[in-house]
């Protein structure tokens, strides 16, 4: 290999990194790239150790098929692909085209996401496609679209953050989930700006803040409305901005009146003086930002919750102006691009709608098919998994870039649904927990071995160039789609070459909300990424959105005006404690990658239950005692980790591990009515000391 400039395989920052040949027999050396503005040379432990997974020993290097005895055994590519294609064909013949489905991922490149959507709609003719990004950004996406007419994680570059007056970070813990982003928060404070962190836990990020608000899980919506109330009551409404650039303020004011601070205090546990201090800090300077992450979003009222935080920005005139606005800190590597190009059940590339005749016609023309032959919208990720193997559900499922056995809500149930499929095929580079259930496992290339584009949390489109060749036996996801499509009667239209796919993606998104038409590999080679929309080759891209107008036809932003409602599952006498879930600094998502990196596993070896010493006291539990956590859906056991950082009415579990400590065995699949986001962030559990070994309960 030669030295190659690329980007990290993990989160949505897509930190710039440089790969250089390692010592003999060692993986490539990784260093951060100073010139890339997101990380400016910094990398976290995950990024620094990413090359460990390139070693053949850590990964899959030959296809596996399940044989008659039920064991996975090595097979040739043609046998594996033939079996899957045959299963897809048979499902469609017996049950109809929607019986063959696709489950994608927010880590897939734009090219893969695009081609996966095309594969489902054209090669399979199926509406059954969705992806794990539904579990990540869908609530923020729905709320942004409703408010601004367009969803882009951040409407400004990350590097703007140090120049705003105040940042409210809601349910986000970048100090652990995206450490290189923290420098922007530190610089914000060095510049005299203030940081407010809203999190039920006093996280490492909360420790950096000027003010930490610690609401009960599931009450971020009420908190936002309480702050909006104080904004109205204390005369901080930007009347001029509201009149000139928004609609719907009267309804927002009414909902704010219904959520007065003392009421909000009782609902959230955030004292009124702290609410007042938050409003004081947020309005003390002329600019401000609200950034949300999974905390407020992964709730059965996630869309409404994000809407309420956006209302706070709109009422104070902190949107659509330089150094002000609402943004979502997208989680997965291509969480942004992955949601733009057709993996979503209701969308075509460029955020076009499957239900809009003009959008259907535009994409059908690029694809060379009759618009009438495109399927309609399908069901959301959890619903797709929930119906798997049942009447009306999928019978054959292709999983690419996802590990739902660990990452889906109510994971025990989802596992049983996957086991009920006639055929499960998983494309991955490691033998994930989902791959272990598969009938066919296809070993695919990973980030450093293939070329493709990703769109980071700023809407910045980036090129990751292949730095080295994959081991023998490994092929690319694009090859898999090409080969399966060919077997399903579509020898053309599914190129294996990423640049060719990207050029087609550009044509398919021309004129669409997420317009990539002006972006090319050539341009991306010379620039540190290009922010979409970029409609023409000469267009500079759009680092900052909405400065002149919002994306609704009337150019105005819309207030959401939601109202508080309880979580889908509130504690009761049988399940008296709230569970919330999240990530740790050394692991990423389902852990399928990071659990295979020795340095990361040594630093953070397994699951745990974080709980307040007061709660531990009532359980008679000490630090390190094995705890049994039970919800209406399942149980998990993990050692206690006592911490005053968490509320005494709430326990926290990281969700990176399978097996007995799997947090998602407990979580609740109550869905947001708009985004269909499951309620990962709050459910009711009972916490007990686990019975000694040998006395395990049935």
């Amino acid at each position, binding site marked *: 290999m030669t030295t190659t400039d690329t980007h990290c395989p993990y989160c949505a920052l897509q930190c710039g990194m440089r790969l250089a040949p390692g010592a003999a027999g060692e993986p490539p050396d990784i260093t951060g790239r100073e010139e890339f503005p997101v990380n400016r040379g910094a990398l976290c432990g995950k990024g620094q150790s990413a090359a460990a997974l390139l070693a053949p020993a850590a990964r899959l290097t030959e296809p596996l098929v399940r044989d008659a005895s039920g064991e996975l055994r090595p097979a040739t590519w043609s046998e594996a692909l033939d079996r899957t294609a045959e299963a897809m064909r048979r499902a469609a013949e017996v049950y109809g085209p929607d019986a063959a489905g696709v489950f994608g991922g927010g880590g897939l490149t734009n090219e893969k996401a695009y081609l996966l959507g095309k594969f489902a709609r054209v090669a399979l003719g199926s509406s059954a496609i969705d992806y794990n990004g539904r579990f990540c950004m869908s609530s923020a996406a729905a709320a942004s679209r409703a408010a601004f007419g367009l969803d882009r994680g951040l409407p400004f570059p990350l590097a703007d953050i140090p120049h705003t007056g105040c940042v409210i970070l809601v349910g986000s813990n970048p100090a652990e989930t995206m450490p290189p982003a923290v420098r922007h928060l530190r610089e914000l404070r060095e510049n005299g700006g203030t940081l407010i962190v809203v999190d039920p836990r006093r996280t490492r990020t909360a420790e950096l803040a000027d003010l*930490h608000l610690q609401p*009960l899980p599931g009450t971020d919506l009420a908190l936002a409305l309480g702050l909006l109330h104080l904004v109205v009551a204390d005369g901080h409404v930007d009347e001029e901005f509201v009149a000139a650039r928004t609609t719907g303020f009267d309804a927002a*004011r009414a909902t704010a009146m*219904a959520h007065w601070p003392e009421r909000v*205090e*009782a609902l*959230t546990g955030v004292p009124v*003086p702290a609410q007042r201090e938050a409003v004081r800090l947020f309005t003390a300077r002329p600019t401000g930002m609200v950034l949300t992450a999974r905390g407020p979003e992964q709730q059965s009222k996630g869309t409404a919750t994000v809407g309420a935080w956006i209302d706070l920005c709109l009422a104070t005139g902190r949107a659509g102006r330089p150094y002000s606005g609402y943004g979502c800190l997208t989680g997965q590597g291509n969480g942004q691009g992955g949601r733009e190009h057709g993996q979503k059940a209701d969308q075509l590339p460029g955020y076009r709608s499957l239900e809009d005749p003009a959008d259907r016609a535009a994409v059908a023309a690029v694809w060379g098919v009759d618009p009438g032959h495109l399927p309609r919208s399908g069901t959301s990720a959890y619903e797709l998994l929930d119906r798997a193997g049942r009447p009306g559900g999928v019978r054959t499922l292709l999983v690419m870039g996802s590990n739902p056995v660990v990452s889906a809500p109510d994971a025990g149930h989802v596992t049983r649904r996957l086991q009920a499929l006639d055929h499960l095929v998983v494309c991955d580079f490691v033998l994930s927990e989902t791959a272990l259930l598969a009938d066919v496992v296809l070993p695919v290339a990973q980030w450093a071995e293939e070329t493709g584009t990703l769109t980071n949390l700023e809407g910045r489109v980036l090129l990751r160039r292949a730095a080295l060749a994959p081991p023998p036996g490994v092929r690319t996801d694009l090859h898999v789609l090409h080969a399966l499509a060919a077997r399903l009667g579509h020898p053309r239209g599914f190129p294996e070459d990423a640049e060719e796919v990207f050029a087609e993606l550009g044509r398919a998104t021309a004129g669409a909300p997420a317009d990539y038409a002006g972006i090319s590999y050539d341009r991306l080679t010379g620039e540190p990424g290009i922010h979409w929309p970029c409609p023409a080759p000469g267009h500079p891209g759009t680092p900052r959105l909405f400065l002149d107008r919002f994306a609704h036809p009337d150019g105005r932003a819309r207030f959401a005006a939601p109202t508080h409602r309880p979580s889908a599952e509130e504690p009761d006498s049988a399940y008296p404690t709230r569970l919330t879930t999240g990530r740790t600094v050394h692991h990423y998502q389902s852990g399928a990658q990071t659990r295979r990196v020795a340095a990361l596993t040594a630093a953070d070896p397994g699951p745990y239950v974080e709980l307040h010493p007061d709660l531990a006291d009532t359980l008679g539990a000490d630090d390190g005692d094995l705890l049994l956590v039970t919800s209406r859906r399942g149980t998990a056991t993990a050692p206690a980790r006592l911490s005053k950082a968490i509320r005494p009415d709430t326990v926290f579990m990281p969700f990176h591990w399978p097996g007995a400590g799997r947090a998602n065995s407990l979580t609740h699949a109550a869905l947001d009515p708009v985004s269909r986001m499951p309620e990962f962030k709050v459910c009711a559990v009972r916490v007990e000391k686990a019975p000694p070994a040998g006395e395990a309960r049935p």
Partner: protein
Amino acid sequence: MAAARLAQQLDALGADAEVTLYGGEPEAPYNRALIADVLTGRHRPADLALPVGAARLRTGSEVVALDTAGRTLALADGDRARYDDLVLATGANPVLPPLRGLFAADGSWRTGLHALRSLADCARLAADAATAHRAVVIGGGVLGVSAARALAALGLPVEIVHQGPHLLERHLDEGAAHAVRQALAGLGVETYPANRARALDGEDRVAGVFLATGHRLDADLVVLACGVRPRTGLAHSAGLPVGRGIQVDDTLACAPGTYAIGDCAEHRGVVHGLAAPAWDQADLLARRLSGADPDARWTGTRTLARLTAGPLEYAAFGVGEAPADADVLCLGDATRGTYRRLVLRGDRLLGGALVGDLATAGTLSRAWLEGRPAGPDPLSLLVAPPAHPARTAR
């Protein structure tokens, strides 16, 4: 308020029902808890309007009679309307104290005499306060204290005459009440607890208040804040069960297809008279009536008293005075005007109050509302860790 929340929730839950809100007041439903802030000018009256979902509003349309058998109601203007289900959210009226001189010759309230329950009251009081010189508030409960503070904020000298042994005795122990009294004094409000007002002085306009002790307080503006009583007349005339309030069962029904929520309702002998239980009752009834949870039941709730009146703040719950076998944990700081107190039996919370320092109000209120034990370190419910770690480290 309860009615607006019910209508909003019925809409949010997608109830297949046409909802009409009838009210005697000219305004659309508004947040009564914020009225004192209208008096001070912090809120414009119109800003208090609450969301009501898709409900049809019939303002200025007081319901004067019910026929629960025939499921019709009659309005003051003679109109009648049919309904399938009826929810009474008639709220409460101010209690008139036994006080001579309340009424003018024509039976109307004496000029200069006010209540503070509605926006109309508020508008009259604000207009009168603009030219008044001295105010007396009769009653030292929540309403009296917040009215007195609001009048003081308008620049009037204010005195509170309170019959009870100390201010806010329904919520606060003597020490907490003393802290509130001190805080009020700092705002220009004098308090005379354990004093009963006997009569109003004056001819056409109020000129003073005679106390039972024989003292006379000069005042050309008097606010009655002697508590409220559930408005049950309509229900009583319709033959619905009425005790102190309209008596409802665990389904919040007082008769088939007839419900009562909020300040007018009495459940298992309890009239809450607070906004939070009214909200919760509205939510529960909305779940029942919308079909979202037809079996939902109301089994009562814990309540928490909360007052924010400008710089004066307190939170209180449970018992005020401690039973003999209880432990009391108390932190008083006369210099800072703060007072914090917990009443415990073992690690069970029986009551508590925070005056002046509300930093732990959230933790404490959640613990109380959820019935959690105080834990091994009850002091942590009164003393918050520093809220701004980064700033102190700067």
